[in-house]
Protein backbone atom coordinates (compact mmCIF):
# COMPACT_ATOMS: atom_id res chain seq x y z
CA UNK A 1 0.00 0.00 0.00
CA UNK A 2 1.34 3.42 -0.85
CA UNK A 3 0.30 7.05 -0.86
CA UNK A 4 0.95 9.65 -3.52
CA UNK A 5 1.27 13.29 -2.48
CA UNK A 6 0.97 15.83 -5.27
CA UNK A 7 3.38 18.60 -4.45
CA UNK A 8 2.37 22.25 -4.73
CA UNK A 9 5.26 24.52 -5.56
CA UNK A 10 6.31 27.42 -7.77
CA UNK A 11 9.16 25.43 -9.41
CA UNK A 12 11.75 27.17 -7.22
CA UNK A 13 10.36 26.16 -3.85
CA UNK A 14 7.69 24.10 -2.14
CA UNK A 15 4.50 25.69 -0.83
CA UNK A 16 4.21 25.10 2.89
CA UNK A 17 0.89 23.25 2.48
CA UNK A 18 2.80 20.45 0.70
CA UNK A 19 4.54 19.68 3.99
CA UNK A 20 1.17 19.50 5.77
CA UNK A 21 -0.07 17.12 3.06
CA UNK A 22 3.00 14.92 3.58
CA UNK A 23 2.29 15.09 7.33
CA UNK A 24 -1.20 13.74 6.61
CA UNK A 25 0.24 11.03 4.35
CA UNK A 26 2.69 9.99 7.09
CA UNK A 27 -0.29 9.69 9.42
CA UNK A 28 -1.94 7.16 7.11
CA UNK A 29 1.28 5.22 7.46
CA UNK A 30 1.90 3.77 4.01
CA UNK A 31 5.00 4.40 1.93
CA UNK A 32 4.93 7.99 0.66
CA UNK A 33 5.76 9.01 -2.90
CA UNK A 34 5.68 12.66 -3.98
CA UNK A 35 4.98 13.85 -7.48
CA UNK A 36 6.49 17.15 -8.60
CA UNK A 37 5.06 18.46 -11.85
CA UNK A 38 6.41 21.67 -13.28
CA UNK A 39 8.74 23.40 -15.66
CA UNK A 40 12.32 23.75 -14.40
CA UNK A 41 11.19 22.36 -11.09
CA UNK A 42 14.37 20.53 -10.02
CA UNK A 43 14.86 22.87 -7.03
CA UNK A 44 11.43 22.03 -5.64
CA UNK A 45 12.10 18.33 -6.26
CA UNK A 46 15.44 18.48 -4.43
CA UNK A 47 13.75 20.05 -1.41
CA UNK A 48 11.25 17.20 -1.34
CA UNK A 49 13.92 14.50 -1.15
CA UNK A 50 14.89 15.90 2.26
CA UNK A 51 11.40 15.83 3.76
CA UNK A 52 10.82 13.32 6.52
CA UNK A 53 8.87 10.26 5.41
CA UNK A 54 9.25 10.75 1.66
CA UNK A 55 10.59 7.58 0.03
CA UNK A 56 10.45 8.54 -3.61
CA UNK A 57 10.15 11.78 -5.55
CA UNK A 58 8.73 11.48 -9.04
CA UNK A 59 9.65 14.42 -11.23
CA UNK A 60 7.86 15.52 -14.39
CA UNK A 61 9.76 18.49 -15.79
CA UNK A 62 8.24 19.79 -19.00
CA UNK A 63 7.48 23.20 -20.48
CA UNK A 64 3.91 21.96 -21.08
CA UNK A 65 3.31 22.21 -17.33
CA UNK A 66 3.69 25.99 -17.19
CA UNK A 67 0.74 27.36 -15.23
CA UNK A 68 -0.04 23.91 -13.73
CA UNK A 69 -3.16 23.40 -15.88
CA UNK A 70 -5.34 20.54 -14.56
CA UNK A 71 -6.07 19.42 -18.14
CA UNK A 72 -2.36 18.59 -18.54
CA UNK A 73 -1.51 17.50 -14.98
CA UNK A 74 -4.36 14.97 -14.76
CA UNK A 75 -3.12 12.58 -17.51
CA UNK A 76 0.34 12.52 -15.93
CA UNK A 77 -1.09 11.77 -12.47
CA UNK A 78 -3.17 8.97 -14.00
CA UNK A 79 -0.10 7.56 -15.75
CA UNK A 80 1.85 7.62 -12.46
CA UNK A 81 -1.02 5.92 -10.70
CA UNK A 82 -1.12 3.22 -13.36
CA UNK A 83 2.58 2.65 -12.80
CA UNK A 84 2.48 2.38 -9.00
CA UNK A 85 -1.14 1.64 -8.00
CA UNK A 86 -1.49 4.02 -5.07
CA UNK A 87 -4.17 3.46 -2.43
CA UNK A 88 -4.28 7.16 -1.51
CA UNK A 89 -3.76 10.30 -3.57
CA UNK A 90 -3.40 13.46 -1.48
CA UNK A 91 -2.91 17.17 -2.07
CA UNK A 92 -3.35 20.27 0.05
CA UNK A 93 -6.83 21.84 0.08
CA UNK A 94 -5.65 25.01 -1.67
CA UNK A 95 -6.90 26.55 -4.92
CA UNK A 96 -4.38 24.28 -6.66
CA UNK A 97 -5.40 21.05 -4.92
CA UNK A 98 -9.12 21.78 -5.01
CA UNK A 99 -9.00 22.58 -8.70
CA UNK A 100 -7.02 19.48 -9.63
CA UNK A 101 -7.99 16.52 -7.42
CA UNK A 102 -11.70 16.21 -8.34
CA UNK A 103 -10.67 16.01 -12.00
CA UNK A 104 -8.26 13.18 -11.18
CA UNK A 105 -10.86 11.41 -9.00
CA UNK A 106 -13.51 11.58 -11.72
CA UNK A 107 -11.11 9.94 -14.17
CA UNK A 108 -10.55 7.14 -11.64
CA UNK A 109 -14.32 6.95 -11.04
CA UNK A 110 -13.94 7.57 -7.31
CA UNK A 111 -15.57 10.11 -5.03
CA UNK A 112 -12.95 12.50 -3.61
CA UNK A 113 -13.06 13.88 -0.07
CA UNK A 114 -12.44 17.62 0.21
CA UNK A 115 -10.84 19.54 3.03
CA UNK A 116 -10.11 16.59 5.34
CA UNK A 117 -9.38 17.73 8.92
CA UNK A 118 -8.76 14.34 10.52
CA UNK A 119 -7.63 10.83 9.62
CA UNK A 120 -9.09 8.10 11.84
CA UNK A 121 -7.78 5.19 9.82
CA UNK A 122 -6.85 4.57 6.21
CA UNK A 123 -10.46 4.78 5.05
CA UNK A 124 -12.16 6.90 7.72
CA UNK A 125 -11.85 10.67 7.68
CA UNK A 126 -13.39 13.75 9.27
CA UNK A 127 -14.30 16.98 7.53
CA UNK A 128 -16.48 19.96 8.30
CA UNK A 129 -19.76 20.76 6.58
CA UNK A 130 -22.08 23.79 6.78
CA UNK A 131 -19.25 26.28 7.24
CA UNK A 132 -17.80 24.35 10.14
CA UNK A 133 -21.11 24.11 12.00
CA UNK A 134 -21.00 20.32 11.87
CA UNK A 135 -18.24 17.74 11.69
CA UNK A 136 -18.82 14.66 9.54
CA UNK A 137 -17.01 11.37 10.02
CA UNK A 138 -17.18 9.28 6.88
CA UNK A 139 -15.87 6.03 5.51
CA UNK A 140 -14.79 5.97 1.88
CA UNK A 141 -15.94 2.81 0.12
CA UNK A 142 -14.02 3.43 -3.13
CA UNK A 143 -10.78 1.47 -3.49
CA UNK A 144 -8.65 4.56 -4.14
CA UNK A 145 -8.93 7.40 -1.65
CA UNK A 146 -8.49 10.85 -3.19
CA UNK A 147 -8.17 13.47 -0.46
CA UNK A 148 -7.51 17.17 -0.21
CA UNK A 149 -6.32 18.00 3.29
CA UNK A 150 -6.65 21.21 5.25
CA UNK A 151 -3.18 22.57 5.92
CA UNK A 152 -3.93 23.89 9.40
CA UNK A 153 -5.21 20.50 10.57
CA UNK A 154 -2.02 18.50 9.98
CA UNK A 155 1.43 19.10 11.35
CA UNK A 156 3.98 19.85 8.67
CA UNK A 157 6.45 17.06 7.90
CA UNK A 158 9.95 18.12 8.93
CA UNK A 159 12.44 19.21 6.31
CA UNK A 160 15.79 17.51 6.78
CA UNK A 161 16.42 13.92 7.72
CA UNK A 162 14.58 12.55 4.71
CA UNK A 163 16.34 10.63 1.97
CA UNK A 164 13.87 10.30 -0.88
CA UNK A 165 15.09 8.97 -4.21
CA UNK A 166 14.58 11.05 -7.32
CA UNK A 167 12.95 9.29 -10.23
CA UNK A 168 11.63 10.47 -13.59
CA UNK A 169 7.84 10.35 -13.85
CA UNK A 170 6.04 8.53 -16.66
CA UNK A 171 6.83 9.95 -20.10
CA UNK A 172 4.07 11.08 -22.38
CA UNK A 173 2.60 13.84 -24.49
CA UNK A 174 0.93 16.10 -21.97
CA UNK A 175 0.49 19.25 -24.01
CA UNK A 176 -3.05 19.74 -25.27
CA UNK A 177 -5.00 22.69 -26.56
CA UNK A 178 -8.00 22.41 -24.24
CA UNK A 179 -6.64 25.21 -22.10
CA UNK A 180 -3.66 27.53 -21.99
CA UNK A 181 -2.02 29.63 -19.33
CA UNK A 182 -1.95 33.39 -19.89
CA UNK A 183 -0.69 35.06 -16.71
CA UNK A 184 -0.71 35.26 -12.96
CA UNK A 185 -1.04 38.45 -11.00
CA UNK A 186 -0.01 37.74 -7.46
CA UNK A 187 -0.47 40.42 -4.87
CA UNK A 188 3.03 41.59 -3.95
CA UNK A 189 3.49 41.63 -0.25
CA UNK A 190 6.35 41.40 2.20
CA UNK A 191 3.95 40.17 4.84
CA UNK A 192 3.75 36.47 5.64
CA UNK A 193 1.27 34.39 3.72
CA UNK A 194 -2.08 34.13 5.51
CA UNK A 195 -2.31 30.38 5.89
CA UNK A 196 1.17 30.01 7.38
CA UNK A 197 1.49 33.28 9.34
CA UNK A 198 1.92 33.03 13.13
CA UNK A 199 -0.20 36.14 13.59
CA UNK A 200 -3.09 37.30 11.43
CA UNK A 201 -4.92 40.62 11.65
CA UNK A 202 -8.21 40.79 9.76
CA UNK A 203 -10.51 43.70 9.05
CA UNK A 204 -14.24 43.65 8.43
CA UNK A 205 -17.00 45.96 7.32
CA UNK A 206 -16.21 48.15 10.34
CA UNK A 207 -13.05 49.32 8.56
CA UNK A 208 -15.37 51.52 6.42
CA UNK A 209 -13.08 51.62 3.37
CA UNK A 210 -9.96 50.14 1.80
CA UNK A 211 -7.71 53.05 2.78
CA UNK A 212 -8.34 52.39 6.44
CA UNK A 213 -6.72 48.96 6.08
CA UNK A 214 -3.46 50.97 6.37
CA UNK A 215 -4.12 50.98 10.11
CA UNK A 216 -3.98 47.19 10.07
CA UNK A 217 -0.91 47.04 7.82
CA UNK A 218 1.06 49.22 10.24
CA UNK A 219 0.24 47.01 13.21
CA UNK A 220 0.77 43.87 11.12
CA UNK A 221 4.27 44.96 10.12
CA UNK A 222 5.21 45.53 13.76
CA UNK A 223 3.95 42.08 14.72
CA UNK A 224 5.19 40.26 11.61
CA UNK A 225 1.57 39.42 10.86
CA UNK A 226 -0.39 38.55 7.75
CA UNK A 227 -3.46 40.62 6.90
CA UNK A 228 -6.86 39.12 6.11
CA UNK A 229 -10.44 40.28 5.74
CA UNK A 230 -14.00 39.12 6.20
CA UNK A 231 -16.21 38.38 3.22
CA UNK A 232 -18.17 41.54 4.04
CA UNK A 233 -15.01 43.62 3.54
CA UNK A 234 -14.29 41.85 0.26
CA UNK A 235 -17.89 42.24 -0.92
CA UNK A 236 -17.75 45.94 -0.11
CA UNK A 237 -14.63 46.20 -2.30
CA UNK A 238 -12.25 47.29 0.48
CA UNK A 239 -9.66 44.62 -0.35
CA UNK A 240 -9.13 41.84 -2.86
CA UNK A 241 -10.64 38.38 -2.53
CA UNK A 242 -7.35 36.60 -1.87
CA UNK A 243 -7.41 38.15 1.62
CA UNK A 244 -10.74 36.54 2.45
CA UNK A 245 -10.79 34.37 5.56
CA UNK A 246 -13.82 32.11 5.93
CA UNK A 247 -15.93 29.26 4.60
CA UNK A 248 -15.29 30.09 0.96
CA UNK A 249 -11.97 31.85 1.44
CA UNK A 250 -8.89 30.79 3.34
CA UNK A 251 -8.84 28.71 6.51
CA UNK A 252 -6.29 29.99 9.01
CA UNK A 253 -5.24 28.81 12.46
CA UNK A 254 -2.46 31.12 13.66
CA UNK A 255 -1.22 31.50 17.21
CA UNK A 256 -2.81 34.94 17.37
CA UNK A 257 -5.80 36.15 15.36
CA UNK A 258 -6.91 39.75 15.75
CA UNK A 259 -10.38 40.48 14.32
CA UNK A 260 -10.92 44.19 13.84
CA UNK A 261 -14.37 45.57 13.02
CA UNK A 262 -15.63 42.07 12.22
CA UNK A 263 -19.05 41.13 13.55
CA UNK A 264 -18.35 37.39 13.36
CA UNK A 265 -20.75 35.80 10.87
CA UNK A 266 -20.64 31.98 10.98
CA UNK A 267 -19.04 31.96 7.55
CA UNK A 268 -16.11 33.99 8.91
CA UNK A 269 -15.79 31.98 12.12
CA UNK A 270 -15.45 28.85 9.96
CA UNK A 271 -12.18 30.22 8.67
CA UNK A 272 -10.47 31.22 11.92
CA UNK A 273 -11.97 29.57 14.98
CA UNK A 274 -9.10 27.10 15.34
CA UNK A 275 -6.70 29.99 16.04
CA UNK A 276 -4.93 29.58 19.39
CA UNK A 277 -5.71 33.05 20.75
CA UNK A 278 -8.47 35.19 19.28
CA UNK A 279 -8.68 38.91 19.94
CA UNK A 280 -11.73 40.89 18.87
CA UNK A 281 -11.88 44.67 18.63
CA UNK A 282 -15.40 45.89 17.90
CA UNK A 283 -17.50 48.77 19.14
CA UNK A 284 -20.66 46.63 19.32
CA UNK A 285 -20.59 44.67 22.60
CA UNK A 286 -23.25 42.31 21.20
CA UNK A 287 -21.18 41.30 18.14
CA UNK A 288 -21.08 37.47 17.82
CA UNK A 289 -17.28 37.58 17.43
CA UNK A 290 -17.04 38.15 21.20
CA UNK A 291 -18.58 34.68 21.75
CA UNK A 292 -15.41 33.06 20.36
CA UNK A 293 -12.81 35.66 21.37
CA UNK A 294 -10.39 34.94 24.19
CA UNK A 295 -9.79 38.63 24.65
CA UNK A 296 -12.48 41.09 23.63
CA UNK A 297 -12.06 44.84 23.52
CA UNK A 298 -15.24 46.86 23.09
CA UNK A 299 -13.88 50.01 21.51
CA UNK A 300 -13.82 52.24 18.45
CA UNK A 301 -11.26 50.56 16.21
CA UNK A 302 -10.14 53.90 14.79
CA UNK A 303 -8.89 54.83 18.26
CA UNK A 304 -7.91 51.41 19.60
CA UNK A 305 -5.82 50.18 16.64
CA UNK A 306 -3.56 53.27 16.35
CA UNK A 307 -3.15 53.25 20.15
CA UNK A 308 -2.17 49.60 20.04
CA UNK A 309 0.30 50.29 17.21
CA UNK A 310 1.93 53.11 19.21
CA UNK A 311 2.18 51.03 22.36
CA UNK A 312 3.55 47.95 20.62
CA UNK A 313 6.07 50.18 18.86
CA UNK A 314 7.16 51.67 22.21
CA UNK A 315 7.36 48.20 23.69
CA UNK A 316 9.57 46.89 20.88
CA UNK A 317 11.98 49.83 20.84
Amino acid at each position, binding site marked *: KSTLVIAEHDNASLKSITLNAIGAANKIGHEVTCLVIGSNCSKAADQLTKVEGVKKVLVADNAAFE*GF*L*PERLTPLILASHKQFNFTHIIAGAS*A*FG*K*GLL*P*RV*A*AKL*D*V*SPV*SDVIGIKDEETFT*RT*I*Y*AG*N*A*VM*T*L*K*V*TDAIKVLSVRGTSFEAAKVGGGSGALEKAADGEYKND*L*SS*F*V*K*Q*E*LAKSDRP*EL*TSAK*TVISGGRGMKNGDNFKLLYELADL*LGAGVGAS*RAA*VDAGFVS*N*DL*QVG*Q*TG*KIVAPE*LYIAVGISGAI*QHLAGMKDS*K*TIVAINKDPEAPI*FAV*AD*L*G*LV*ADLFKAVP*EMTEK*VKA*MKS
Partner: protein
Amino acid sequence: MALRALVGCKRVIDYAVRVRVKPDKTGVVTDGVKHSMNPFDEIAVEEAVRLKEKKVVSEIIAVSCGPAQCQETLRTAMAMGADKAIHVEIPSPQYETLQPIHIAKIMAKLATDQKADIVILGKQAIDDDCNQTAQMTAAFLDWPQGVFASKIDKEGDGLTVMREIDGGLETIKVKLPAVISADLRLNEPRYATLPNIMKAKKKPLDKKTPADLGVDLKPRIQVLSVEDPPVREAGAKVADVDELISRLKALGRI
Protein backbone atom coordinates in the same frame (compact mmCIF):
# COMPACT_ATOMS: atom_id res chain seq x y z
CA MET B 1 -22.73 31.29 -33.09
CA ALA B 2 -24.49 31.74 -29.81
CA LEU B 3 -23.93 29.16 -27.09
CA ARG B 4 -26.29 26.90 -25.22
CA ALA B 5 -25.73 27.14 -21.48
CA LEU B 6 -26.48 24.60 -18.77
CA VAL B 7 -26.51 25.94 -15.21
CA GLY B 8 -26.67 24.03 -11.94
CA CYS B 9 -28.97 25.13 -9.09
CA LYS B 10 -28.65 23.29 -5.79
CA ARG B 11 -31.32 23.72 -3.14
CA VAL B 12 -29.58 24.20 0.22
CA ILE B 13 -30.42 25.37 3.73
CA ASP B 14 -30.52 29.16 3.52
CA TYR B 15 -27.16 30.73 4.37
CA ALA B 16 -28.65 32.79 7.19
CA VAL B 17 -30.11 29.79 9.04
CA ARG B 18 -28.27 28.54 12.10
CA VAL B 19 -27.75 24.85 11.31
CA ARG B 20 -28.51 22.29 14.03
CA VAL B 21 -27.13 18.78 14.25
CA LYS B 22 -29.71 15.99 14.80
CA PRO B 23 -29.56 14.38 18.25
CA ASP B 24 -29.03 10.93 16.67
CA LYS B 25 -25.95 12.30 14.85
CA THR B 26 -27.11 11.16 11.40
CA GLY B 27 -27.14 14.61 9.85
CA VAL B 28 -28.50 18.11 10.34
CA VAL B 29 -32.10 19.19 10.85
CA THR B 30 -33.66 20.06 7.48
CA ASP B 31 -37.41 19.72 8.18
CA GLY B 32 -39.18 23.05 8.53
CA VAL B 33 -35.95 24.92 7.79
CA LYS B 34 -35.80 27.69 5.19
CA HIS B 35 -34.07 26.61 1.97
CA SER B 36 -32.77 28.72 -0.92
CA MET B 37 -30.67 28.41 -4.02
CA ASN B 38 -26.98 27.87 -3.20
CA PRO B 39 -25.50 31.43 -3.33
CA PHE B 40 -22.69 30.41 -5.71
CA ASP B 41 -25.28 28.86 -8.05
CA GLU B 42 -27.17 32.16 -8.05
CA ILE B 43 -23.95 33.74 -9.32
CA ALA B 44 -23.73 31.01 -11.99
CA VAL B 45 -27.31 31.67 -13.14
CA GLU B 46 -26.69 35.43 -13.16
CA GLU B 47 -23.59 34.99 -15.31
CA ALA B 48 -25.52 32.90 -17.83
CA VAL B 49 -28.24 35.55 -17.96
CA ARG B 50 -25.68 38.30 -18.51
CA LEU B 51 -24.06 36.27 -21.30
CA LYS B 52 -27.49 35.93 -22.86
CA GLU B 53 -28.03 39.69 -22.59
CA LYS B 54 -24.70 40.12 -24.39
CA LYS B 55 -25.94 37.68 -27.09
CA VAL B 56 -23.10 35.27 -26.31
CA VAL B 57 -25.59 32.70 -25.02
CA SER B 58 -28.79 31.81 -26.86
CA GLU B 59 -30.57 29.56 -24.36
CA ILE B 60 -30.21 28.82 -20.66
CA ILE B 61 -31.25 25.48 -19.18
CA ALA B 62 -31.33 25.29 -15.38
CA VAL B 63 -30.85 21.91 -13.67
CA SER B 64 -31.52 20.84 -10.11
CA CYS B 65 -31.12 17.35 -8.65
CA GLY B 66 -33.02 16.30 -5.55
CA PRO B 67 -36.47 16.06 -3.98
CA ALA B 68 -39.65 17.69 -5.34
CA GLN B 69 -38.94 21.03 -3.62
CA CYS B 70 -36.05 21.59 -6.04
CA GLN B 71 -38.69 22.78 -8.49
CA GLU B 72 -39.05 25.97 -6.42
CA THR B 73 -35.32 26.55 -6.85
CA LEU B 74 -35.70 26.03 -10.60
CA ARG B 75 -38.58 28.54 -10.72
CA THR B 76 -36.26 31.05 -9.06
CA ALA B 77 -33.62 30.39 -11.73
CA MET B 78 -36.23 30.90 -14.45
CA ALA B 79 -37.46 34.09 -12.78
CA MET B 80 -33.85 35.32 -12.96
CA GLY B 81 -33.77 34.59 -16.69
CA ALA B 82 -33.24 30.88 -17.40
CA ASP B 83 -35.38 29.75 -20.34
CA LYS B 84 -36.26 26.26 -19.19
CA ALA B 85 -35.51 23.81 -16.46
CA ILE B 86 -34.84 20.14 -15.85
CA HIS B 87 -35.60 18.59 -12.50
CA VAL B 88 -33.73 15.34 -11.92
CA GLU B 89 -35.83 13.68 -9.25
CA ILE B 90 -33.90 11.95 -6.50
CA PRO B 91 -36.01 10.74 -3.60
CA SER B 92 -34.95 11.35 -0.05
CA PRO B 93 -33.15 8.15 1.07
CA GLN B 94 -30.93 8.18 -2.01
CA TYR B 95 -30.45 11.93 -1.78
CA GLU B 96 -28.73 11.53 1.58
CA THR B 97 -25.75 9.64 0.19
CA LEU B 98 -25.57 11.59 -3.05
CA GLN B 99 -22.11 12.98 -3.77
CA PRO B 100 -20.74 15.48 -6.29
CA ILE B 101 -19.54 12.51 -8.41
CA HIS B 102 -23.19 11.53 -9.02
CA ILE B 103 -24.28 15.10 -9.80
CA ALA B 104 -21.31 15.53 -12.13
CA LYS B 105 -22.31 12.39 -14.06
CA ILE B 106 -25.86 13.72 -14.35
CA MET B 107 -24.62 17.15 -15.48
CA ALA B 108 -22.25 15.60 -18.02
CA LYS B 109 -25.03 13.45 -19.51
CA LEU B 110 -27.42 16.41 -19.67
CA ALA B 111 -24.74 18.62 -21.24
CA THR B 112 -24.36 16.05 -24.00
CA ASP B 113 -28.11 15.44 -24.46
CA GLN B 114 -28.91 19.14 -24.48
CA LYS B 115 -25.97 19.96 -26.78
CA ALA B 116 -24.66 22.50 -24.29
CA ASP B 117 -21.54 24.52 -25.15
CA ILE B 118 -20.96 25.86 -21.68
CA VAL B 119 -21.81 24.52 -18.24
CA ILE B 120 -21.76 27.07 -15.42
CA LEU B 121 -21.87 25.89 -11.82
CA GLY B 122 -21.26 27.44 -8.41
CA LYS B 123 -17.76 26.75 -7.11
CA GLN B 124 -19.08 25.10 -3.97
CA ALA B 125 -22.35 24.37 -2.21
CA ILE B 126 -22.64 25.93 1.23
CA ASP B 127 -24.07 22.74 2.76
CA ASP B 128 -21.47 20.05 2.02
CA ASP B 129 -18.69 22.56 1.15
CA CYS B 130 -17.25 20.03 -1.33
CA ASN B 131 -16.10 22.21 -4.24
CA GLN B 132 -15.92 19.30 -6.70
CA THR B 133 -18.86 19.20 -9.11
CA ALA B 134 -17.54 21.52 -11.84
CA GLN B 135 -14.11 19.88 -11.95
CA MET B 136 -15.66 16.40 -12.13
CA THR B 137 -18.23 17.40 -14.76
CA ALA B 138 -15.40 18.74 -16.92
CA ALA B 139 -13.47 15.49 -16.43
CA PHE B 140 -16.41 13.28 -17.43
CA LEU B 141 -16.92 15.37 -20.57
CA ASP B 142 -13.19 15.72 -21.30
CA TRP B 143 -13.80 19.46 -21.49
CA PRO B 144 -11.50 22.14 -20.09
CA GLN B 145 -12.37 23.70 -16.75
CA GLY B 146 -12.28 27.35 -15.72
CA VAL B 147 -12.88 27.06 -12.00
CA PHE B 148 -13.17 29.79 -9.32
CA ALA B 149 -13.90 32.29 -12.09
CA SER B 150 -14.12 35.99 -11.28
CA LYS B 151 -14.41 37.17 -14.90
CA ILE B 152 -15.21 35.45 -18.17
CA ASP B 153 -15.05 36.87 -21.70
CA LYS B 154 -15.75 35.20 -25.00
CA GLU B 155 -12.77 35.50 -27.32
CA GLY B 156 -12.65 33.76 -30.68
CA ASP B 157 -13.72 30.15 -30.26
CA GLY B 158 -12.95 30.10 -26.54
CA LEU B 159 -13.23 31.92 -23.25
CA THR B 160 -10.73 33.99 -21.34
CA VAL B 161 -11.22 33.21 -17.67
CA MET B 162 -9.83 35.16 -14.74
CA ARG B 163 -9.56 32.86 -11.74
CA GLU B 164 -9.28 33.44 -8.00
CA ILE B 165 -6.18 31.62 -6.75
CA ASP B 166 -4.22 31.74 -3.51
CA GLY B 167 -2.36 35.03 -3.41
CA GLY B 168 -4.04 36.72 -6.35
CA LEU B 169 -5.54 36.17 -9.77
CA GLU B 170 -4.73 33.98 -12.74
CA THR B 171 -5.84 34.28 -16.35
CA ILE B 172 -6.28 31.22 -18.55
CA LYS B 173 -7.90 30.49 -21.89
CA VAL B 174 -10.22 27.56 -22.35
CA LYS B 175 -11.59 26.17 -25.58
CA LEU B 176 -15.33 25.73 -25.94
CA PRO B 177 -17.18 23.62 -24.93
CA ALA B 178 -16.08 24.22 -21.34
CA VAL B 179 -17.15 24.03 -17.71
CA ILE B 180 -16.97 27.15 -15.55
CA SER B 181 -17.36 27.45 -11.77
CA ALA B 182 -18.44 30.78 -10.34
CA ASP B 183 -16.56 32.46 -7.52
CA LEU B 184 -17.84 35.27 -5.34
CA ARG B 185 -16.72 38.22 -7.42
CA LEU B 186 -17.97 37.05 -10.82
CA ASN B 187 -21.08 39.21 -10.47
CA GLU B 188 -23.84 40.29 -8.12
CA PRO B 189 -26.99 38.27 -8.76
CA ARG B 190 -30.20 40.17 -9.51
CA TYR B 191 -33.40 39.81 -7.56
CA ALA B 192 -36.29 38.24 -9.44
CA THR B 193 -39.01 40.81 -10.06
CA LEU B 194 -42.68 39.97 -9.52
CA PRO B 195 -43.56 40.01 -13.26
CA ASN B 196 -40.62 37.71 -13.92
CA ILE B 197 -41.69 35.38 -11.13
CA MET B 198 -45.13 35.20 -12.78
CA LYS B 199 -43.58 34.58 -16.20
CA ALA B 200 -41.34 31.85 -14.77
CA LYS B 201 -44.40 29.84 -13.76
CA LYS B 202 -45.21 29.34 -17.44
CA LYS B 203 -41.72 28.32 -18.55
CA PRO B 204 -41.19 24.62 -19.34
CA LEU B 205 -39.96 22.36 -16.54
CA ASP B 206 -39.00 18.81 -17.52
CA LYS B 207 -38.70 15.94 -15.09
CA LYS B 208 -36.15 13.17 -15.40
CA THR B 209 -34.85 10.38 -13.22
CA PRO B 210 -31.22 9.26 -12.80
CA ALA B 211 -32.30 5.99 -14.47
CA ASP B 212 -33.45 7.96 -17.56
CA LEU B 213 -29.93 9.34 -17.74
CA GLY B 214 -28.24 6.03 -17.02
CA VAL B 215 -26.47 7.32 -13.91
CA ASP B 216 -25.82 4.88 -11.06
CA LEU B 217 -26.32 6.47 -7.65
CA LYS B 218 -24.54 3.78 -5.66
CA PRO B 219 -23.22 5.42 -2.46
CA ARG B 220 -19.46 6.02 -2.44
CA ILE B 221 -19.23 6.95 1.20
CA GLN B 222 -20.75 5.84 4.44
CA VAL B 223 -21.60 8.62 6.89
CA LEU B 224 -20.60 7.38 10.33
CA SER B 225 -21.63 10.46 12.28
CA VAL B 226 -22.42 14.15 12.06
CA GLU B 227 -21.61 16.00 15.24
CA ASP B 228 -21.38 19.48 16.69
CA PRO B 229 -17.94 21.01 16.36
CA PRO B 230 -15.97 21.47 19.58
CA VAL B 231 -17.27 24.58 21.31
CA ARG B 232 -14.85 27.38 21.78
CA GLU B 233 -15.30 29.08 25.10
CA ALA B 234 -15.43 32.82 25.05
CA GLY B 235 -12.83 34.43 27.22
CA ALA B 236 -12.83 37.72 28.97
CA LYS B 237 -13.40 41.27 27.89
CA VAL B 238 -10.52 43.62 28.52
CA ALA B 239 -10.98 47.19 29.68
CA ASP B 240 -8.55 48.95 27.35
CA VAL B 241 -5.62 48.65 24.99
CA ASP B 242 -3.12 48.53 27.86
CA GLU B 243 -4.80 45.51 29.39
CA LEU B 244 -5.04 43.84 25.97
CA ILE B 245 -1.31 44.28 25.37
CA SER B 246 -0.31 43.06 28.80
CA ARG B 247 -2.55 40.00 28.51
CA LEU B 248 -1.10 39.17 25.07
CA LYS B 249 2.39 39.62 26.46
CA ALA B 250 1.62 37.29 29.35
CA LEU B 251 0.42 34.69 26.85
CA GLY B 252 3.61 35.13 24.86
CA ARG B 253 1.69 36.09 21.73
CA ILE B 254 3.43 39.43 21.17
